[in-house]
């Protein structure tokens, strides 16, 4: 007689996700990155409500003053509180980063999975389209968009997302292709499971690792792009600000008022570092080659 009681008493195993989590927690840089990100995000999200100033309000007695008890991060040349502006700029920068990454994630994963799963001529055609889009100069593309549709922050998300999905599509396609040849997919087919179930239960959980890693590495890339566009004057328009525009404004005045460059640049760099550390940590933690067999 089978011992059913033993099943109820079965000790839980260590899933690959839990394994990866344990390994990630041991990686100091990744943990530092994660904690720093949480703090920066909270600072940007909650900060503006606690601040005494708004991002556009001018203090006529305080033009371009260095950090003081009144304005912790100083004020810019129009007398606006820099700390509040950094919070708002962070919202835009992080927002662009996350939204554009989500756009690229959705398009990239679906497109790549489809190409990899269908294979053959469809796959070849779909990937040639990706190759062609890759060859398009990004700056020209964005400037064209801005000229046609006007300057618009939503457009910025879309433009960046529309370019960033290409790499994601390639990664996912490669993963799905190699998965398709795995014996456990063949076993699932031979069990007579439905296509839907095979994709949902067997394919997707196994491509999620590399996707998660690439996502954390896409966010900083996207934020850099936004900063770059803002620096060129193609991004967010005043009085709104992003970290990119603040760095641009600060760079113009860095000889007289260095804190206007240094503080936003420090925030931006810290965020990028943290995301990259976290991404690297995730990659190491999820990498099958370094995990025990």
């Amino acid at each position, binding site marked *: 007689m089978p*011992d*059913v009681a033993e*099943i109820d008493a*079965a000790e839980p195993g260590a899933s690959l*996700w839990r394994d990866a989590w344990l390994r990630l927690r041991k990686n100091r840089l990744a943990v530092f990155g994660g904690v720093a990100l949480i703090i920066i995000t909270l600072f940007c999200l909650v900060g503006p409500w606690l601040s005494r100033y708004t991002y556009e309000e001018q203090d006529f007695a305080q033009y371009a003053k260095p950090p003081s008890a009144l304005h912790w991060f100083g004020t810019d040349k129009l007398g606006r509180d820099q700390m509040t502006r950094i919070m708002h700029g962070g919202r835009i920068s992080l927002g662009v980063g996350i939204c554009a990454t989500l756009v690229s994630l959705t398009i990239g994963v679906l497109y790549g999975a489809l190409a990899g799963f269908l294979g053959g001529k469809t796959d070849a055609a779909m990937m040639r389209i990706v190759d062609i889009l890759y060859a398009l100069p990004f700056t020209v593309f964005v400037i064209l968009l801005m000229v046609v549709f006007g300057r618009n922050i939503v457009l910025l998300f879309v433009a960046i997302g529309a370019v960033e999905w290409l790499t994601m599509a390639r990664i996912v396609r490669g993963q799905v292709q190699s998965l398709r040849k795995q014996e456990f997919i*063949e076993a699932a087919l031979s069990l007579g*499971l439905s296509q839907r*179930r095979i994709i949902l239960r067997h394919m997707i959980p196994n491509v999620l690792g590399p996707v998660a890693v690439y996502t954390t590495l896409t966010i900083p890339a996207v934020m850099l792009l936004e900063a770059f566009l803002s620096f060129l004057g193609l991004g967010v328009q005043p009085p709104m600000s992003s970290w990119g525009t603040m760095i641009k404004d600060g760079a113009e005045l860095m000889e007289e008022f260095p804190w206007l460059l240094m503080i936003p640049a420090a925030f931006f760099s810290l965020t990028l570092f943290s995301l990259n550390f976290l991404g690297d940590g995730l990659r190491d933690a999820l990498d099958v080659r370094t995990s025990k067999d």
Partner: protein
Amino acid sequence: MSEAFLQIENLKTHFPVERGMIIRRRIGTVKAVDGVTFSLARGEILGLVGESGCGKSTLGRTILQLIPPTEGTVVLAGKNLAGLNKHDLRESRADFQMIFQDPYASLNPRMTVFDALAEAMRAHRKIPAAEINERVAALMQKVGLSPRFVKKYPHEFSGGQRQRIAIARALAVEPKLIIADEPVSALDVSIQAQIINLLAKLSREMQLTLVFISHDLSVVKHISDRIAVMYLGRIVEIGPAAQVFEQPLHPYTKALVSAVPIPDPEREKQRQRVILTGDPPSPLDPPSGCSFHPRCSYAATECSRAVPALEIFDPARTVACIRAREINQA
């Protein structure tokens, strides 16, 4: 032998070989399986041997319709699997299962053993939630694993244990036919015997028809009722295991048998070895006539003319060699 339970008729699997980036031209055909015919009785174990690349695995996958056959029929319990449409085929898949070579690749690394087995059970039958635990536990015990381990993930098991799990998953749908594709070649020698014995025991207990694919004759010797020897997409000899092993008829089988080490140094020293020269020919461009003739020490001029058919040698044995009677007289 009772009437055929699995009947395979003139089964062919040909793969087109294409070249060109955009306009793909067909430059040839690989005849991985080229006209295989045999039948098995219910509960019979067939050992299918041949060297790497001879089409054993493709034959196994074609029988199970994981690769669509180019030609021929596979009749299992009166139903032609090769003629089923997609939907009916998926419904019938519970009847025939596969056990794969690499137990590290054949289990989804993100599913617990319980999930994998329960998924397989529910693939074709509705099973009340109250029963599922009991059934999974029974299945685990059947393959010699403790039900205590069901919540674990594949990477927490050894190779032999994983192969047991893969066997359990194949059994979960209650199949009638199992094709085991080199199920032990990825395992340690010490574990191989355990898995082979487990398969033999299950086949006996459950009246399972089993096709056991291996490149190693000594592995299939003990468990098989009959042995089929494959060379370049065709079966060259088929017969009762002991006879094929003791007195091989086809020159290729003779070479295979003589390559099996004898665990007795005295006898090992005395026996004559048949050493094959050359490599197996390219399946893209097989030799004319009997595809074995360039490597065969008995080859005559007529061997290169026509493909020899499988002919009955004695009531239990068939062989595809025009000189079979001549060479095996003495």
